[in-house]
């Protein structure tokens, strides 16, 4: 049969967001052959970045794009060393992992802001081009916080020589692209091994993250929780079954949210090979009932613990954990804890997430959900009874395979109006019907939204659906304000 042999290929490990650097039409005269500069060829890098900024300005002026990657694309096409040159002399922190990169990098930028200006790829453009754009926008900021896609960590870390890498979690996500979660963990492991002077701040509760950070020198472990455990039934190092103590029960008791982590809980361990949850240097506590103001981050050895009150303007337990990771990172880099905590508390919105936007007769809260672990965390953000719209696309940046919809616990959707939409609305609809959840189905997200009762609606959307809706909501708000 035609097309069978020739479509076998090695997995694609680049260009995941469909925004690869190739194919940018540049005039012939700028295509000068350059070798990767190491930041020492300032003249050419400076010209390349300037050209990129002109392109970015044109892009915004002509309405072709927001300019969040075009600056970097043009600069990197002219000079592959532009990122290294821009990063030189700054304290760079990279934030990576499957879920929470954008939110945590915003919280970290907030935590560092009291200690100096911060360059930050705030829109979530998390490959090398987005990093260049962010650094070029704030040329003299002494700090840089860059969220980085897991598969682009090697490239960005190699160029920026980060002071710290924050590793949040590693769970199944876009398996058509990465094949196996463990492979992603192995890639991250190699990156950290190649940067022995970089400080790693990593989640002690996720076995894959711990294994990936295992080659890092003196990692700072944070008990940031791991609600989703189904990628780590077996040990990432040796493949034998992991023993879990407390963790499992805690997770289900918390309703699919985060385990409340303390330093003494064993959490998980592998008897045959000895991989186990490391004792965290940072963890967090709360008092029931859960309130955003009631959290304390705790750091240090037993008996010498210092606590920092954690105030976050973001909803959900997952964001308390993200705030603690941001605090731990800032303090590790020498920022005063109280000042860092105050900075974290200023973050109330993250690149279109969490805030209510008005569109027609609805007020919409947009949440990015692109994998089962993210769904679990998002369920914690839903108000009981509030209508939900779930939008699932399967474009390159979403992941082509939507089998993961069957990993979702859909029971929390029962008893509220539910609509589904997107390229793969039918797949989600089938999933919901087998799960006993009544719903309406529409291809177009806004048309589906219009069929839901007026008032507040939670919208859970995959990457490309999220981006399109965010733009749509911004347009509707501008039109409403005009």
């Amino acid at each position, binding site marked *: 049969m035609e*097309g069978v042999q020739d479509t*076998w290929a*090695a997995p694609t490990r680049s260009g995941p967001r469909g925004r690869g650097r190739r194919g940018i039409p540049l005039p012939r005269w700028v295509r000068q052959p350059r070798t990767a500069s190491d930041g020492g060829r300032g003249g050419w890098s400076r010209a390349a970045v300037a050209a990129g900024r002109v392109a970015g300005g044109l892009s915004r002026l002509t309405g072709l794009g927001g300019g969040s990657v075009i600056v970097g694309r043009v600069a990197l096409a002219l000079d592959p060393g532009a990122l290294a040159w821009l990063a030189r002399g700054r304290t760079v922190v990279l934030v990576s992992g499957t879920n929470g990169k954008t939110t945590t990098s915003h919280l970290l930028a907030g935590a560092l802001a009291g200690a100096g200006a911060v360059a930050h790829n705030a829109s979530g453009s998390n490959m090398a081009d987005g990093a260049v754009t962010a650094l070029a926008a704030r040329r003299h900021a002494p700090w840089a916080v860059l969220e980085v896609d897991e598969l682009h960590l090697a490239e960005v870390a190699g160029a920026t020589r980060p002071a710290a890498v924050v590793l949040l979690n590693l769970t199944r996500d876009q398996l058509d692209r990465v*094949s196996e979660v463990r492979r992603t963990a192995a890639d991250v492991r190699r990156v950290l091994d190649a940067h022995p002077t970089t400080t790693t701040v990593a989640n002690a509760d996720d076995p894959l993250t711990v294994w990936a950070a295992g080659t890092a020198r003196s990692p700072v472990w944070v008990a940031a929780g791991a609600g989703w455990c189904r990628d780590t039934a077996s040990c990432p190092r040796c493949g034998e079954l992991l023993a879990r103590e407390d963790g499992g029960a805690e997770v289900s008791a918390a309703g699919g949210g985060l385990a409340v982590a303390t330093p003494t809980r064993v959490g998980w361990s592998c008897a045959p090979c000895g991989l186990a949850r490391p004792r965290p240097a940072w963890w967090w506590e709360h008092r029931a009932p859960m309130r955003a103001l009631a959290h304390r981050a705790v750091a240090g050895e037993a008996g010498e613990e210092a606590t920092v009150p954690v105030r976050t303007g973001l909803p959900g337990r997952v964001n308390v954990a993200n705030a603690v990771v941001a605090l731990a990172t800032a303090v590790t880099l020498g920022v005063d804890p109280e000042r860092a905590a105050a900075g974290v508390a200023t973050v109330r919105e993250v690149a279109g997430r969490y805030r209510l936007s008005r569109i027609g007769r609805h007020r919409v809260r947009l949440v990015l959900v692109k994998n089962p672990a993210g769904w679990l965390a998002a369920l914690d953000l839903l108000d009981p009874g509030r209508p939900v719209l779930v939008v699932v696309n399967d474009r390159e940046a979403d992941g082509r395979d939507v089998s993961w919809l069957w990993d979702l616990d859909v029971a929390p959707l029962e008893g509220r109006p539910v609509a589904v939409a997107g390229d793969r609305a039918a797949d989600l609809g089938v999933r919901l019907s087998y799960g006993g959840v009544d719903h309406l189905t529409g291809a177009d997200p806004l048309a589906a939204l219009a069929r839901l009762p007026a008032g507040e609606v939670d919208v859970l959307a995959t990457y490309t659906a999220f981006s399109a809706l965010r733009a749509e909501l911004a347009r509707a708000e501008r039109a409403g304000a005009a």
Partner: protein
Amino acid sequence: MSAPAVSIGLLLPDVLGTYSDAGNAVVLARRLQWRGIPAEVVTVTADDAPPRGCDLYLLGGGEDTAQYFAARWLARHPWLPTAMTTTAVTLGVCAGLQLLGRSMTDRDGHEHPGLGALDLTTWAAPGRAVGETLVRCRLPGVGVLTGFVNHGGATVLGADVAPLGEVEHGHGNDPAGTAEGAVSPAPLPDDVVRARPGVVATYLHGPVLARNPALADHLLARVVGHALPDLDPDRVPDLAALRRTRVPHGDGRGTGTHRPEGTSPCPAR
């Protein structure tokens, strides 16, 4: 007296759950319950002892290290392959297919024994097969199967096993051929539905039974011993749209239709 529930043994979803194949158990149970036939899903994790008397056994896909753990776990219960092939109907998907075979040789050349329930052998392929796939199924009345494959194996079938079908688009068992999946015993040309234990295996995810209800009903018919009545389409109203978009040129069940030369069987994005 009510009939005993059909028991669906979902084996190792904690270890072989990476590609969401546990959904197959939900589909099977619901399609029985909707027809008034009691059904229960027996979830068997790595900490449990597998139950002997299940009517159906399911094995899903997982990562390489997890798969070899599953092989060792299954080897500790030697009666299980006998039950899976002689008294029950078994569906193996991806790693599940490989585990049901004779052996699996990994990238380092190490050979891991399989259950030996299917006459097939798997080696590490030079590249990975990833993508939407359409398979013309050999099982009577099933039509075209749609699914998403994601594996690095090259599986070769032996003489005692038949392919589940032929690839129309996408990826089969190995880079060189068009055979997809495996069935034992082989389907009969003049098949009538009756109680018949045996093994059906495929590389298709989706989960495969969510996308292909005819395959689910085929397995169920072999368990209950008779063809099952059609379900009210309103039970799963989105299924028609899912089939239309995934199998755009239709099932061609009994019509022998072929898609025109040069057209894509997958919807344009």
